[in-house]
C-alpha cells in the first residue's frame, strides 16, 4: 500500500458512506429513500401531469395517456385569445401592487417604532394589535362588505381590495419588528449624533439594512394577494371586466360539460407568475413561510 507523503500513514481506500453501513442500516436507508421518492411523486405528479396535459388536443382528454400524442398549443391560444385571462392578469397586478408596496412600508414603519422607539402605551398598543390577529376573519367579512358597499360606496370597484392592505398588516409588522430589533443600535446612535432625525434614520439606515426581510415580506404578500379568492369574489365577482386571475379560472369551471383542457391550461398560466417568483426568491419564500406559515 502507498504511504501518504504528509502524514506518513498507510493510505487505505475510503469506503463510500453507503458501504460502511451495516446491513440493517442499509435497508433502513433504502426504505427512507423509497419513502421520500414516493412522496415526491405524490406531491409533484399532479402538477407535472397537468403541465404535460395542457399540450394535449382537447379530444385526448377523454382518453388515457400521460404524454400528448400530438403536442399542440391550441389550449393556450384559446385561453389567451378567447378568454379574459391576460386582462385579468393585469387587473390582478394593478390591484395588488399598492397594498404590497405601501402596506409593507407602513408595516416597516410600525415595526421600527415598536422595535426602537419609546412612547407612552407602547406595550399596551402592541398587545392590542397582536390580539386582533385572533379575531376570525369571518366575523369582519359581512360588516366589511356592508361598510364598503353601503357606507363608502365602493361596490363594484376593486377599492375594497386595494385600500385596506395599504395600511399595513399586524403580522408583517411583527415580523419586521423582530428583524429590526436585531440590527445594531450603534448605527442609529451615530446617526443621531450626526443630527439625523427619526424619519431620516428610518429611511436612510433601517430600511436599506432590512432589504432581505422587506423582500421576503413583499414576495409573501404578493403570493397571498395573488392567490386571494374570497375578497375578489365578494367585491368584483359580478363584473367580469374586473376579474382577477383566480376569478377567471373559477369562471372556466362550469358544472356541465367541463372542459378540463381549459381548466388545466388556465391553471398552468395562473401558476406562472408564482413559479417565476419562486425561481428567483426561493430562499426568501421558504425562510419566510417557515417562520410565519401561509399568508392570506
Amino acid at each position, binding site marked *: 500500500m502507498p504511504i501518504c507523503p504528509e502524514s506518513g500513514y498507510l493510505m487505505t481506500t475510503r469506503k463510500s458512506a453507503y458501504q460502511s453501513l451495516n446491513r440493517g442500516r442499509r435497508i433502513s436507508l433504502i426504505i427512507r429513500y423509497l419513502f421520500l421518492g414516493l412522496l415526491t411523486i405524490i406531491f409533484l405528479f399532479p402538477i407535472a401531469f397537468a403541465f404535460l396535459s395542457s399540450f394535449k388536443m382537447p379530444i385526448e382528454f377523454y382518453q388515457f395517456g400521460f404524454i400528448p400524442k400530438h403536442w399542440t398549443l391550441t389550449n393556450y391560444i384559446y385561453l389567451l385569445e378567447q378568454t379574459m385571462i391576460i386582462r385579468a392578469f393585469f387587473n390582478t397586478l394593478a390591484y395588488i401592487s399598492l397594498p404590497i408596496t405601501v402596506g409593507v412600508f407602513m408595516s416597516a414603519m410600525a415595526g421600527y417604532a415598536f422595535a426602537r422607539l419609546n412612547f407612552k402605551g407602547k406595550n399596551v398598543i402592541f398587545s392590542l394589535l397582536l390580539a386582533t390577529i385572533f379575531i376570525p376573519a369571518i366575523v369582519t367579512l359581512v360588516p366589511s362588505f356592508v361598510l364598503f358597499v353601503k357606507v363608502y360606496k365602493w361596490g363594484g370597484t376593486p377599492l375594497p381590495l386595494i385600500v385596506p392592505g395599504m395600511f399595513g398588516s399586524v403580522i408583517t409588522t411583527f415580523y419586521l419588528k423582530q428583524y429590526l430589533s436585531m440590527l445594531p443600535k450603534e448605527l442609529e446612535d451615530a446617526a443621531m449624533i450626526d443630527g439625523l432625525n427619526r424619519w431620516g434614520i428610518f429611511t436612510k439606515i433601517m430600511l436599506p439594512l432590512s432589504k432581505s426581510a422587506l423582500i421576503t415580506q413583499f414576495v409573501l404578500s404578493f403570493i397571498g394577494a395573488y392567490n386571494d379568492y374570497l375578497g375578489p369574489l365578494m367585491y368584483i365577482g359580478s363584473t367580469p371586466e374586473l376579474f382577477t386571475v383566480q376569478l377567471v379560472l373559477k369562471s372556466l369551471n362550469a358544472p356541465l360539460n367541463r372542459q378540463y383542457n381549459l381548466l*388545466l391550461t388556465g391553471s398552468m398560466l395562473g401558476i406562472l407568475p*408564482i413559479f417565476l417568483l419562486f425561481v428567483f426568491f426561493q430562499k426568501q419564500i421558504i425562510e419566510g413561510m417557515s417562520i410565519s406559515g401561509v399568508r392570506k
Partner: protein
Amino acid sequence: MVFILPLCLGILLFVIIPLFVAIYLSFTQYNLFQAPDFILFDNYIRLFTVEAEFWRSILNAMYSALGVPIGILFAMIIASVLSSKIKGVKFFRVAFFVPTLLSAVIVTLLWQWMYDYDTGILNEFMSSIGLDRIRWFSEKMAMPSMIIMGVWGGLGVSILLYLGAINAIDKTLYEAAEVDGANFIQKFRFITFPGVSPITFYILMTGLIGAIQDFTRFQVMTNGVPPTTMMPVLLIYRYSGGEYGGNYGYASALAVILGIIIGMIALFNAYMSRKWVSYDH
C-alpha cells in the same frame, strides 16, 4: 407617534369597527336596500331553534378538520426522515413545498380533474388494477376527498416548520438515548415528539381555525352539493348576497356564533396543550 399611525388606523377602520358593526348587524334584519330593521334576538332565536343547515355545516367543518391531525402526523414523520442522514434534503424540501404555492383555486381545479369519475387519473388507476371506480363526490366520499386534497396542499408548510423544529433539538439527547439502547420509535416518542410539541401546538391551532373557515376550495369544487360538503363560511356567503339573497343580519349572526365557536376551540386547544406541550427549561 406618527410611525404607528397608518397601521393603527388601518386596524381600527378595517378590523375593530367591522367587529362592532357585525355585532350590531346580528340584531337586525338588513337587505342592503332598506334601512336595517332592529329585530333584537330574532336571528339568534332562529339560529338555535329552526336552523339546521348551519349546524350541519359546523359538523362538516369538524369532519374536515380531521385533516389537521392527519397532516401533522405525516409532516412530523416526513420531517423526521428528512432530518436523518439523507442526501438531497434541499431537493425534497422544495419538492414537498411546491403544492403550497398553488392557489386554492388551482389546487381545487387540479384535483377536480383527477377525481373525475370517467376521465380522472385516480379512477383510471383504480380500474387498471381491477378495482371499482370510485364516485369521489358521492355523499359519503365527498368530504374524505376534500380532506385528501387539503392534506396534499398543506403539508409543505408543516414539513418546513417541523424541519426547523427538529433541527433545533439538542443532538446530544439522541446520542444519549442511543447509548441507552433506544430504538427509532422510542427516540421519536420521547425526544422528537416532545421536542417539537410547541410547533405541533401552533400548527394544530392555526390548522383548526383555518379548517373551520375553509371556503374557496369548497365553493369552487362542490358549492355545497352534496350537503355533506356545506361549510360555515360558504353558508354565510350564501346569506350575504349569494344564493340565499341578502340577509346580512342573519349572516352576521351566523358569523358571530362561528367566531365564538372558533374562540372556544382555540381556548380549549390552549388549555389542553398544557398536558402535552413541553417547552425547554
